[in-house]
């Protein structure tokens, strides 16, 4: 079956139905392995065990930005290629991305209180991630305010593309400005600046978070397709009742 067949919602639903249990199981296993490795990882020489918030904070930050990137590709799919499932993917991804951003902000805030002495500071990295969170909420609001799903899809696609300019600002904010948040340690020119004893559990947790995103995203896409079918059936029922 060529991959283009997945553009058919029914075939896509069938595939998701087969994949979901395996993805959920893989997510649970990855989290179990990742969390156990994080527990066994050595304490930081300065911060002690508190530094292990990083194993949740950093992957959720990566997913928060990655989710907006997925939404941007889906937005291009809606506006440029008119892919049938692109708007379903975008609508399903928005709340998941907002949740990851919120987890990133909250865990970072809890980490900052013992380490920096403050729950919040208005430096470039924290401010741009907060703006990303506000933009996620704005996209969700736009989806819910426009009634017709396909019109809402195109409006949300334009807004997603405009908001994509925030992603490089977040990534490079620690380089362009003098920030309290530390500079990049993993995704940078030159090798990662972390010891493998810490880097390996971090990457395992990143894979676990990615599997979590895939599981939740596919399940949400399935729910959205079902929701649209229910809406269509209700409209057909209303039409039939009005016509008789």
């Amino acid at each position, binding site marked *: 079956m060529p991959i283009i067949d997945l553009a058919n919602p029914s075939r896509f639903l069938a595939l998701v139905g087969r994949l979901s249990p395996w993805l959920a199981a893989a997510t649970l296993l990855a989290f179990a392995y990742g969390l156990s490795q994080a527990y066994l990882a050595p304490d930081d020489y300065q911060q002690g065990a508190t530094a292990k918030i990083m194993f949740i904070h950093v992957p959720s930050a990566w997913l928060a930005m990655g989710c907006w990137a997925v939404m941007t590709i889906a937005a291009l799919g809606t*506006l440029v290629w008119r892919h049938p499932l692109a708007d379903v993917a975008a609508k399903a991804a928005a709340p998941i991305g907002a949740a990851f951003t919120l987890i990133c902000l909250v865990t970072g805030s809890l980490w900052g209180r013992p380490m920096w002495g403050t729950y919040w500071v208005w430096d470039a990295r924290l*401010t741009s991630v907060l*703006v990303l969170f*506000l*933009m996620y*909420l*704005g996209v969700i*609001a*736009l989806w819910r*305010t*426009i009634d*017709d799903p396909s*019109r809402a899809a*195109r*409006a949300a*696609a*334009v*807004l997603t*593309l*405009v*908001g994509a300019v925030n992603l490089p600002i977040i990534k490079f904010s620690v380089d362009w400005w003098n920030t309290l948040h530390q500079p990049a340690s993993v995704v940078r020119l030159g090798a990662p600046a972390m010891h493998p004893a810490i880097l390996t559990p971090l990457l395992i947790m990143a894979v676990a978070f990615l599997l979590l995103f895939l599981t939740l995203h596919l399940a949400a896409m399935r729910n959205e397709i079902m929701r649209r079918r229910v809406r269509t059936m209700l409209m057909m029922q209303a039409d039939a009742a009005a016509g008789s």
Partner: protein
Amino acid sequence: MTALSALLLRDMRLAVRVGGGALIGVLFFLIVVTLMPFAIGPDLVLLARIGPAILWLGALLASLLALDRLIAADHEDGSLDLILMGRVPLELTVAVKAVAHWLTTGLPLVIAVPLLGLLLNLDPKATGAVALTLLIGTPALTFIGLIGAALSVALRRGGLLLAVLVLPLTIPVLIFGVAASNAAIVGPVAFGTPLTILSAFTLASIVLGPFAAAAALRHGME
């Protein structure tokens, strides 16, 4: 007379003659600036220190509230459909509408700054700095607001949604506008640095705003 200049004159005439135009925006600006000392306290030294920020916030909110006159008013009386069907490229049309909107709504805010600077105990140098940064920054606010106005054009209850969509995008303009004003007053950063970045934001929004707004209008109308 070309179509674009006719559209410009039409929008400017409507803004001046129909209610909710330039003077209401300036009145809202005045009210916001008047409210601040009630909340902050009448300490003149403190007001002079945060005066540029108060003026920038007031101008931002005033230009935000005027945005629903930009496209939604045309949508209600049907002229937006005529504009969409015209031969002039939609990007140019919405850009001209945004220019007319800035001339009738943004520019009066800039003209009101010297008077409001007196209320906030700003010295002439600070007032001049704020007025210059607002002169450069209010077009950015209008053209970024154009995107939000185009996205929420057909919504009846879209008022707050427009604010939620536009405000995160205007945060960089606000940051650099206030930074430039403060740099002129207290230093040590040179005034030119944030002013140049603010000008870059304005120029970028003048180019990108009409494209995003035209895409939103094309795809958003049934």
